[in-house]
């Protein structure tokens, strides 16, 4: 009995220590990205066997296994976009290699991968925001003109040119990291962050009127009916066509 209570307390102490340590090791640095198809982080930590088969089958040596001492859960695969980005292989060998399901086999089209999300967060340093035509991130993006588009904006400094603002569209960004890797600045102005850090989420009950209307074929709110505008005399409102109408001979007509 004495023996087992001794063992039990040793084990309890070790477990407590481990418990605390494991809480800490759940955190993932913002620049460490998981391979394509990785489950959501908590599930990933429960699924990944730390075998490194994904690492071995990545033809570009993008992936590495965290060593103890790295601030990443030890033995799990990750990559850092600024060091080696993911080349988005069509056959996704890393996912195919994974024996555990930590990388989800239901990912078969690499364009559906969401390893993270690019954010052009430093507008003060991005060259395009200065009115120059760097465009490098836009050009290297495998989903060019979809994940990153160039939005025009007047250049108020020169007064006569346009600025071409690289704009990330989260619908298409896979988080491959080619933009962050290629950004010409000493420190990239555009970076990939884990979705948990940067992706917003609309409340489930939000409905966009125009989308609902399109789905439904017509407006879902009460059928169009005459609005009861409180208009000055001599004015009326044509709901279907012209909008505000100033009636002729009216004293309140156009200024």
């Amino acid at each position, binding site marked *: 009995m004495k*023996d*087992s209570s*001794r*063992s*039990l307390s*040793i*084990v*309890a102490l*070790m*477990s407590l220590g*481990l*418990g605390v*340590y*494991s*809480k800490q*090791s*759940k955190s993932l640095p913002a620049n460490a990205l998981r391979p394509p198809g990785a489950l959501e982080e*908590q*599930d990933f*930590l*429960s*699924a*990944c*066997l*730390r*075998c*490194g*088969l994904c*690492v*071995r*089958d990545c033809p570009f040596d993008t992936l*590495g*296994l965290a*060593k*103890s*001492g*790295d601030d990443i*859960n*030890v*033995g799990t695969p990750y990559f850092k976009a600024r060091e080696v980005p993911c080349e988005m292989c069509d056959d996704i060998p890393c996912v195919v*290699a*994974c*024996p*555990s*399901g*930590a990388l989800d*086999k239901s990912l078969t089209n690499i364009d559906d991968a969401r390893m993270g999300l690019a954010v052009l967060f430093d507008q003060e340093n991005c060259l395009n925001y200065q009115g120059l035509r760097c465009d490098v991130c836009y050009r290297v993006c495998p989903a060019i003109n979809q994940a990153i588009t160039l939005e025009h904006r007047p250049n108020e400094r020169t007064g006569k040119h346009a600025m071409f603002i690289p704009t990330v569209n989260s619908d298409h960004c896979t988080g491959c990291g080619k933009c962050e890797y290629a950004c010409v600045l000493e420190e990239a102005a555009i970076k990939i962050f884990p979705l948990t850090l940067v992706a917003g989420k609309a409340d489930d009950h939000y409905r966009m009127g125009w989308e609902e209307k399109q789905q439904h074929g017509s407006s879902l709110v009460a059928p169009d009916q005459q609005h009861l505008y409180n208009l000055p005399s001599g004015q009326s409102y044509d709901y279907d066509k012209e909008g505000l109408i100033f009636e002729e001979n009216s004293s309140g007509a156009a200024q």
Partner: protein
Amino acid sequence: MSPNAHPGQEAIIANGWFQANRWLISRRLSQITILVLFLLGPWFGWWLVKGNLSSSLTLGILPLTDPFVLLQSLASGHWPETASIIGALIVISFYLIVGGRAYCAWVCPVNLVTDAAFWLRERLGLGGASSLSRKTRYWLLGATLIMPVVSGQIIWELVNPVSMLHRGLIFGIGFAWVILLAVFIFDLFVTRRGWCSHLCPMGAFYSLLGTHNLVRVRADNRAACNDCLDCYRVCPEQQVIRTVLKDAEKGIGPVIDAPNCTNCGRCIDVCAPNVFHMGLRFNNKVSVETSHLDRPNHSSGVEVL
């Protein structure tokens, strides 16, 4: 000190050096070959085996998965992909044949570390074993399987010296050598055979696979025992030998069938009168020739740690 300063000395004289070391040599060869197979890829680009002991793929077709890590993953709430389940079943079947803890003696890389610590401990004559219970590992095994249930992630693998060392050698070790150093120091100064025979939950897990396995060390020739105690001194799990060797009168059969026998075969090596041999678990009957009821029993003074 025990009767012989160097266990196995008599066996070398009686049977020759090779005969008295063949199991140890084969075991080292096995441990090193497995390690080298995994290292051929990263070192020379010959990818016969990819991955590590947690999960691997050999020649592109044979998946092998450590059932212990898979069980931790299951406990944390993940239903694994078929490949790793098949891999684990293959591994389980293998150890059901060769003996659960054969993993510890023939495969596990940490055994090289703890055997080195043990060797040094004996050389330096360090005694003073702490009285850690050998059952502690089963408590720890329980903890390693409960922690994932509570926390939803695999926890033991954060510190498991076995996967740390093996993965470390193949993928880069980082600071994991600190853990291995701790194991070495623990075995050297604190508890004789401390890690592998008292604490390691992985060994505890594999011992459970060994409760019914096929291959077993047998002491069919136990009547020839001359009580030199060499087998006790080299055995990492001494408690498994005693009754089989000494209690033939009480109807105990000649098969060492305790799950914690690692099938390392070192007792076979060091025994000058060749009491032990590797065999199967069947036919565990007390035969007439082996029960020497008239032999004086010298085993009463044996200290089983």
